[in-house]
């Protein structure tokens, strides 16, 4: 009788209804996501597969992700408060944004940059920039050039170190980036492996580089990217003061830090070379970033 029950599909269904908890740890912060059902489980795994779950701090916020009454829709709660119900793609996009925001808002004991991060042969590359600078698009191309992935959005550098610690998430690419990415990625054949909303495509980095994303890398080079159609290609070194100015503009958690993190930012720019990159297409970049990392 028991054996028959354990093997039954109803048992699997029952187990899928039991809520599980996934801790999401980043920058000495932790949030929790409780979920049940196959669809929410797939979303959580898709979004946070590479994010550590062993945070040293207890979660300061809990999201709940549950199946909706309507098939193929999910409901998102913050604590017990209902936030949103929609398709998996739209809820995933919202949950990713919310979780990034709340992990960043509480961050202390280090510098948290709005920046992508990659590495090549162990040398870390920081790509700081505001939304729309082209961080994710450039990151995607660099993955095809066998750079290791850290993140396309948030990098934490603990006090007194040069260690880049990422919030590793799927690449979050605006739909407008498809025109640039078509030569690199077949969106049609990969549609089952990505989440696409009307605004963005969420794409696992391993579809561009099969290597498992890195948990950290030592910062060796800073490049401020700027994608600008129909412009001249430039890659110019920044003075330390210019780099400090640009880096302060990308520091997300300044208000949580002593002295707004100014002395830590200047410590970094004194030690790490920085460049400003303006590009129209990837061919212009070629091996120049790799060459700078090798210096």
């Amino acid at each position: 009788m028991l054996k028959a029950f354990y093997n039954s599909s109803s048992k699997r269904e029952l187990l899928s209804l039991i809520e599980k908890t996934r801790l999401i740890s980043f920058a000495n912060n932790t949030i929790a996501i409780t979920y049940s059902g196959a669809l929410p489980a797939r979303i959580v795994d898709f979004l946070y597969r590479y994010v550590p779950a062993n945070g040293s701090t207890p979660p300061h916020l809990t999201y709940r992700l549950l199946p909706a009454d309507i098939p193929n829709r999910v409901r998102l709660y913050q604590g017990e408060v209902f936030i949103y119900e929609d398709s998996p793609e739209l809820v995933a996009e919202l949950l990713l944004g919310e979780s990034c925001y709340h992990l960043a808002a509480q961050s202390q004991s280090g510098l948290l940059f709005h920046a992508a991060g990659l590495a090549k042969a162990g040398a870390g590359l920081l790509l700081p920039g505001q939304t729309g600078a082209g961080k994710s698009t450039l990151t995607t191309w660099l993955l095809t050039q066998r750079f290791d992935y850290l993140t396309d959005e948030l990098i934490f550098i603990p006090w007194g170190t040069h260690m880049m610690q990422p919030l590793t998430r799927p690449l979050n690419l605006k739909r407008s980036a498809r025109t640039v990415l078509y030569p690199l990625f077949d969106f049609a054949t990969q549609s089952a492996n990505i989440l696409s909303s009307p605004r963005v495509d969420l794409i696992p980095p391993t579809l561009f580089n099969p290597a498992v994303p890195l948990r950290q890398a030592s910062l060796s080079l800073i490049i401020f990217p700027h994608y600008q159609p129909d412009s001249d290609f430039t890659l110019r070194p920044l003075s330390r003061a210019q780099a400090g100015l640009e880096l302060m503009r990308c520091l997300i958690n300044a208000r949580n830090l002593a002295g707004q993190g100014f002395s830590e930012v200047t410590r970094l720019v004194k030690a790490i070379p920085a460049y400003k990159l303006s590009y129209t297409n990837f061919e212009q970049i070629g091996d120049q970033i790799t060459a700078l990392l090798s210096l």
Partner: protein
Amino acid sequence: MPSPQKPWRKPDYRLELLDNELLLFHPSRTVILYCNPTASLIWQLCDGQHTTQEIVALLSAAYPEASQAIPTDVESVLQQLQQAGAIELD
């Protein structure tokens, strides 16, 4: 015509001299200013002792090749620093 006023630096800015350039940062107002080498020199001369005319004269003596542009540069930099609340004019 440069002003006879004596500009002086507000004390609540933190500064970081990086090579010949300067970053000025006001922690509570979260204002950050970048000063190129010329602006950095001008900032350092804003000590409440020198008038704007004296700052122009000092820079013109040090950089005679740029003496024509210096009065305008000094006025422009002082105006920007004042607008950012980094200096006051006595």
